[in-house]
């Protein structure tokens, strides 16, 4: 596996919404490179015909009946909000649309 570059670290930081400082970028680039170098060992098994495990227990079909349960009150829902207005969460301007 090729090492990780500072530019890649900057890209990851943007994807993860972390406003890293230049110093942090340098520091993390070095550390992530070491860690990735070590964990890349797992690719030893990449071509083995083994099913991946996403869940440790072999459970399936855990579902609930379509029955209404009490919600929080709007006051409770908004109790931790950094800002609110008109019983809604107030957030800075949103750029673009998904």
């Amino acid at each position: 596996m090729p090492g990780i570059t500072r530019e890649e670290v900057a890209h990851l930081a943007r994807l993860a919404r972390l406003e890293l400082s230049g110093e942090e970028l340098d520091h993390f680039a070095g550390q992530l490179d070491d860690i990735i170098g070590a964990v890349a060992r797992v690719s030893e098994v990449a071509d083995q015909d083994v099913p991946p495990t996403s869940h440790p227990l072999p459970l399936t079909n855990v579902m609930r009946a379509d029955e209404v349960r009490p919600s929080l009150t709007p006051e409770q829902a908004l109790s931790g909000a950094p800002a609110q207005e008109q019983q809604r969460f107030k957030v800075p301007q949103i750029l673009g649309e998904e």
Partner: protein
Amino acid sequence: MTDNSIIKLTAAETARRIAAGELTAVEVTEAHLARIEAVDEKVHAFLHVDREGALAQAREVDAKRARGEELGPLAGVPLALKDIFTTRSMPTTVGSKILEGWIPPYDATLTKRLKDADVVILGKTNMDEFAMGSSTENSAYGPTGNPWDLTRIPGGSGGGSSAALASFQAPLAIGTDTGGSIRQPAAVTATVGVKPTYGAVSRYGMVAFSSSLDQGGPCARTVLDAALLHEAIAGHDPLDSTSIDAPVPPVVEAARNGSVQGMRVGVVRQFRGEGYQAGVVQRFEESVGLLKELGAEVVELDCPSFDLALAAYYLIAPSECSSNLARFDAMRYGLRVGDDGTRSAEDVTSLTREAGFGAEVKRRIMLGTYALSSGYYDAYYGSAQKVRTLITRDFEKAFEQVDVIVSPTTPTTAFPIGERADDPMAMYLADLCTIPTNLAGNAAMSLPCGLAPEDGLPVGLQIIAPAMKDDRLYKVGAAVEAAFVERWGHTLLEEAPSL
């Protein structure tokens, strides 16, 4: 009866005396609050102490008794709750600045069960931020000291819980174990910690680090106390889709009937070698000898894929955490930084996460973001999930030959605070022996097995059982504990320095 005699009691004995009227729950709670007052400035096990709430709960227990109501097996016993479970009456910070002061509008299922069992919740304990770490140094609120040596780490991420137990601030505590965060702190503080089978204890209201690995569990000073707490918190929860819908294994019964007579105990070749401290290996080998003396048959096992466990863990856990922690975006709760009326939501989110997360959390988020990104997924995350399958198969094969597996809990004793703080690779090695169990989802315990001769610090013995066979941990653990206490003439914690 002096305060000191109250705080050194086991949970089982405390509950017995309260039920018998020999002690009141309020007396017990006050004794522990006084102890916290006296020593926690030095230890820093607690992030929040709920004096009023605890006393109110204690008064309720005493009132119940006065009314002639039957009390549960842990009624009135104080407990230190890891600050990762939501509590309506106390802040829940997960050791992070990003949730400073957050009071959740709901109780975790585990919190509810503790209250229903009349366990008195003293407060919330310190932890590595978002449970990421093996030393509790990653807490945004400062490190916790190991009561055996306050300059050393109490383990992590649940260092607050283990330190609270070892310094007699509470006879019971709750931890969570994603890669060893219950067992490794137990090992380095000479306490008992159990990671139950994945799905045994509800995760509803437990702030997620790595969903497929996280598991809450009991921490205590004796195997029986851990079993009593295990029984109180385990069981099916319809609010957690990954919760096991089956009866809880008979852990208390097993803890009361400790025995290894006729059992086959496995020793895994991969759990030794480089990186293990001599004194740790020595105490472990003595433990294996003890098991033989007690009538167990010891079997050598080979689990080759365990060598890849650490690598797989450091892909899976960061991947899941990068997604789980995305919700901390400054929009609905928690910290908000940089909202000056001109910045966009996106910028405020980035500034807040930058200011609110510590270095280890950021490192893991970045690592997980990398491992999941297109082009890398198959090589990293995909392969790690395959390793997981192989480890599970190694365990299955091993458990065809043995009833339980034993190993050192952690390769070294408690290291000095600061020693590995900016050396993630060295820090990650602390969980070498505990991680395979999290990846496979089965159960494991750590209990004290002596002090390392070279530094006089506690060593932990890990016992591993198959999934859903948690009772075996307690059966073996109780037998080992009884034999050691007989050999030493007292519990190991008696040798800890007084604070």
